[in-house]
């Protein structure tokens, strides 16, 4: 299998490469549109700040290439957010994004001092859909479980989020009772807000699903 990890100075690509390596897969780190087009799977990591990431994508010409891809595509963390239309993050007025999915990224507004931003740490997934989240072994297919198991938890670090909409295929809640999009999808474009590459056994299963499941 031919896996492309998109290289655009977008943060921690090394961790994504290592996570694939732990699954016995080799990937190509690339910004070459031809190599990306030919890949069977495309991973799009992202960390840091939205406007700088969009600037780097435009500089590499990738803002035009990515929306035309047709193979299963997975945006991770900021890489997921960049699939939307607009983000509040960035200089005055925010940042225009790639626009494959119809969401606008907004900042967490904590209700009290006990809720910190960034939303940082392990949180449980719920309302899971699509084969991307199969075989997790937790209670994640339905609403939030009263007693989540280890397999429901993944690792988040983010200050901005995509609200829940028709495109949402996984939810997490912060604060408790306030769901946001932990996973999104439109056609071949999938995205996860959490760090799938740093999410223990649950993350490994989701990454494996992305490589082997029928996501078309």
């Amino acid at each position, binding site marked *: 299998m031919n896996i492309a990890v998109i290289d655009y100075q977008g943060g921690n690509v090394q961790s994504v490469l290592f996570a694939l390596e732990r699954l016995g897969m080799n990937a190509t780190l690339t910004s070459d549109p031809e190599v990306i087009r030919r890949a069977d799977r495309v991973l799009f990591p992202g960390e*840091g700040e939205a406007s700088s990431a969009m600037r780097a994508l435009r500089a590499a010409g990738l803002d035009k290439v990515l929306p035309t891809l047709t193979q299963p595509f997975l945006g991770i963390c900021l890489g997921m957010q960049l699939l939307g239309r607009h983000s509040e993050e960035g200089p005055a007025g925010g940042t225009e994004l790639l626009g494959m999915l119809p969401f606008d990224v907004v900042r967490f507004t904590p209700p009290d001092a006990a809720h910190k931003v*960034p939303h940082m740490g*392990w949180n449980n997934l719920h309302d899971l859909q699509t084969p991307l989240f199969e075989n997790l072994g937790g209670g994640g297919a339905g609403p939030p479980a009263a007693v989540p198991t*280890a397999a429901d938890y993944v690792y988040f670090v983010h200050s901005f989020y995509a609200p829940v909409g028709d495109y949402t295929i996984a939810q997490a809640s912060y604060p408790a009772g306030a769901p946001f999009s932990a996973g999104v999808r439109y056609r071949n474009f999938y995205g996860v807000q959490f760090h799938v590459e740093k999410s223990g056994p649950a993350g490994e299963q989701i990454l494996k699903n992305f490589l082997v499941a029928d996501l078309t």
Partner: protein
Amino acid sequence: MLTKRLIACLDVQNGRTVKGTNFVNLRDAGDPVALAARYAQEGIDELVLLDITATVEKRRTLIELVRNVAREVNIPFTVGGGIGAVADVEALLLSGADKVSLNSSVLREPGLIDELARRFGSQAIVVAVDARQTTEAPATAADEAWEVFTHGGRHPAGREALAWCREAAERGAGEILLTSMSHDGTRDGYALGLTRGVAAGVGIPVIASGGAGVAAHFRDVLLPGGAEAALAASVFHFGDLSVAGLKNYLLTEGVAMRPVG
């Protein structure tokens, strides 16, 4: 819901863990990669690698270590210890560290926090604050005075702890690693007054460190103390507490935890 985090801290020197451990079934307890992988497997939520090497070889060995840990371990980890240069932060993050912890360098040059947060994102920048209680025999927590120290608690930095934590958060730090030098190594419990004050006083997550001895200490610092995470070293390394046992205890005490299993 978002859970509280348990963090194991590994002290490394020249690429080896320096505090002994009595882990059985671990062929080489001095190998930080093996130790990190072991903790991850046991269900720890995060790791901190604290490099205390003081040689010119430091940068190369640390980058190599970070790469090796990132290759083996599937949970987030922070690397800290004498890091100051922007180029070093970049190299460590590109090698697979999720966060870099800064201490003396940002006290010397607070603007470095702004620069690093702009460049790498707040999520990657942890400001480590070593505080010591300086009032003689305070009657209550309100009488305590907490000052920031450097060099293992020997040099006062001329800053009050809460004020410095607030400044670090405003400048763009993503997290505070708050160590009480007055409690570190005592095993008498975390500094609850200090932790409560900082956790309530900054809008970013706070990791409490220093003083863990028994399971109840973790409950106290995570619930009444208000910390988002609790860090410990020796109680884990010497097997006084197992990650699974501690998490099960905390779950029964009503602390939100990612269960082991």
